[in-house]
């Protein structure tokens, strides 16, 4: 791909964004009902799909096939034009798809990939009350009975479970095997009897996370992904799908639109009448943040371009993004002052930096805790990235 080709593609995406990004969606999506949110997300997904922008990272035969360099441009421009994020489809187009493509059967792929394009919503059922950072300690059980498995247990932190059609489920099929060896990976139809979904209210006041209670839920054996008891290895791919291009998209949003929100905030007169921007302390922090954001975006660009990334590169990006997001939203909250505390709701479908700075700051722990806490990431970086010795095991 030549530079000229890419420039042309960029122009095409810009034109598309100008024509298709809904006007005023931030205002309109603040304080809406769940139903309105879901329908807005579904419409936007179909809009992107018609342009070929919904699943650019999928293989061509399933509706994707966009070169990596073009995907980068696409996400840069979507961020620059402050397009809504695909929040609801996220697990489906990334985690579910990558699992199916890497470890699913042909039948599973044919059943689900087109359905996802049509709007099938997925949820991830991994974490449990006793298995957070130590995910392999999960205890939800799946007992084989004839052609099916009977599942019992409880899942936590299942984002969007209330709207989900299907669930990526990890459950223990061999209780006697070592922790990581007895786990299997299932596709679970959320309409199966025995599933009870309860919303958990989060620190931000939102409730997109849910608990899933599983009481003798029957999953046909054909919904097993990969071999029985090999679920941990399959899950490693699913967890990996959170990185790479999705991190690039988030970094572009934080560094492009998000940083511009911040500069805009600083250019508005504060309660005393002075613009924060004219305060050298604020200007210095902005410059430091812009520098770090530029570093983050470049790290993401390298991660997606690199054919053979280092074993901890994804952890470096995840750790750095989450802590930079936290520092940046904290700074936004400080600069915005008391006014920021009156933003009681943030616009749905926005990025992690919505401009409701205090809420964004609190929401930033949704990045430093789940998906491997920052502490876990540092251990991964030290051990896999630098080859430092593991801790002696306590158990």
């Amino acid at each position, binding site marked *: 791909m030549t530079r000229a080709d890419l420039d042309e593609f960029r122009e095409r995406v810009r034109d598309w964004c100008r024509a298709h990004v809904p006007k005023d969606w931030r205002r309109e999506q603040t304080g809406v009902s769940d139903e309105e949110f879901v329908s807005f997300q579904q419409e936007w997904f179909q809009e992107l799909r018609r342009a070929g922008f919904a699943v650019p990272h999928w293989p061509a035969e399933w509706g994707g096939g966009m070169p990596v360099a073009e995907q980068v441009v696409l996400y840069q421009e979507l961020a620059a034009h402050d397009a809504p994020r695909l929040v609801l489809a996220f697990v489906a187009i990334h985690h579910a798809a990558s699992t199916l493509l890497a470890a699913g059967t042909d039948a599973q792929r044919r059943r689900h990939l087109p359905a996802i394009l049509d709007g099938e919503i997925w949820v991830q059922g991994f974490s449990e009350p006793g298995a957070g*950072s*130590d995910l392999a*300690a999960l205890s939800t059980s799946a007992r084989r009975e004839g052609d099916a498995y009977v599942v019992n247990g409880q899942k936590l932190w299942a984002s969007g479970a209330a709207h989900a059609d299907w669930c990526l489920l990890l459950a223990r099929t061999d209780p006697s095997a070592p922790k990581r060896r007895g786990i299997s990976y299932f596709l679970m139809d959320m309409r199966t009897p025995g599933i009870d979904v309860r919303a958990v209210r*989060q620190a931000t006041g939102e409730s997109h996370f849910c608990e899933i209670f599983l009481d003798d839920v029957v999953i046909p054996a054909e919904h097993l992904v990969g071999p029985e008891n090999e679920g941990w290895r399959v899950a490693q791919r699913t967890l990996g799908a959170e990185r790479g291009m999705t991190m690039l998209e988030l970094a572009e949003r934080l560094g492009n639109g998000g940083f511009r929100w911040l500069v805009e905030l600083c250019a508005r007169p504060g309660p005393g009448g002075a613009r924060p921007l004219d305060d050298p302390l604020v200007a210095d922090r902005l410059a430091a943040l812009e520098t770090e954001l530029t570093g983050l975006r470049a790290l993401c660009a390298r991660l997606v371009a690199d054919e053979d990334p280092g074993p901890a590169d994804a952890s470096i990006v995840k750790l750095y993004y989450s802590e930079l997001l936290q520092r940046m939203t904290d700074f936004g909250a*400080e600069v915005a002052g008391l006014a*920021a505390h009156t933003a009681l709701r943030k616009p749905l479908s926005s990025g992690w930096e919505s401009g409701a700075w205090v809420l964004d700051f609190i929401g930033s*722990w949704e990045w430093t805790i789940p998906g491997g806490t920052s502490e876990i990431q540092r251990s991964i970086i030290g051990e896999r990235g630098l080859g430092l010795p593991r801790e002696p095991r*306590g158990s």
Partner: protein
Amino acid sequence: MPAESPGLSELHDELRAVARDLLGKADAEAAADWRSIAGAGWPGLEVPGAFDGADATFAEVAVILQEMGRAAARGPYAAVAVLGVGVLNLLESGPDRDRLLRDTAAGDAVPVAVLEGEAMGETSFRIARTARGPLLHGTADFVLDAPAADRLLVPALDPDGTPVIVGVDPRAAGLSVERRPVLDATRGFGRVAVTDVSVPPESVWRFRGDPQEAVRRLRDRAAVAMACDSLGLSKAMLEATVAYAGVREQFGRKIGSFQAVKHACADMLVQVSVARELVAAAVRGQAGDEPGAAVAASMAKSYACAAAVEVAGKAMQLHGGMGYTWESGVHVYLKRAALNRSLFGSPALHRRRLAERYSPLARERLDAYGGSERSLS
């Protein structure tokens, strides 16, 4: 020397125990009943004995404020005891003012000072002489607990430009108190807008000393009150985190045995310890009206309120997913800490105040090198 006299220390322990008990009983979703608070004698702590108050000092109020922070308590205590009573004590004696002090100590009045929560400049309220008599106008935003007040104490400039306090009924015609809901649901704010409210002479109260100085001292009190609250909430968050880390297990171990958790808790304790000393000094400054009181107030406010955000944030992190739930309540503390940080002067603003002292001092030091005995603090 930070040590308190033993008698005082025991009194404070007792106050603290009562406060922890009373605030612990309150519904997390509602403020403790104002009757019980008044019954405990807290609003009247600094009210002179002549008006049925306890003749105590800010040091005792500070004990309650810390406990309010620790419990993330609701209700207008800080606005009344720190700002309301604080203003009244700075005023010349007079029948209305004296009666209000007495009613406040008894729990029959809830007077709140109309202090802008953020901008630290001059009051915007003015008394204008008009054909209809003297009229008050002006606005103040983010006035702490204005919606809960039954009397508003409005700092204003009288027609001669002298700062005075105007006692106003919140239901007066021409006055509006608009609620300003904030993420921290434990706090109440209002935007007070006054348009041509008539000001009878007996509602205009004058300061005893220099009015400018009085207003400055009021702002210092407000800042130290926030520092006390932030210190209390930091302590609560540290304790909760240590307790959680001592029981929660992952990877076959108590998470508190991991250095990543243990060392983070150690850093929290260091921050809390430093904040504790700075707050203690600031409280002594207020209680004794000492010369370094303003400096101590700015140090305590900037350090303790910034540290509380970090401590509460660390608490959320170390509680893991549990800390991010609404149910755990950690968010209540994080929001309150973030609010305290912005209220009554940001850390940067208070540091700017501190830094204004360096320039002349530096010159003095340069002039008389080696002989300076004055500590900066």
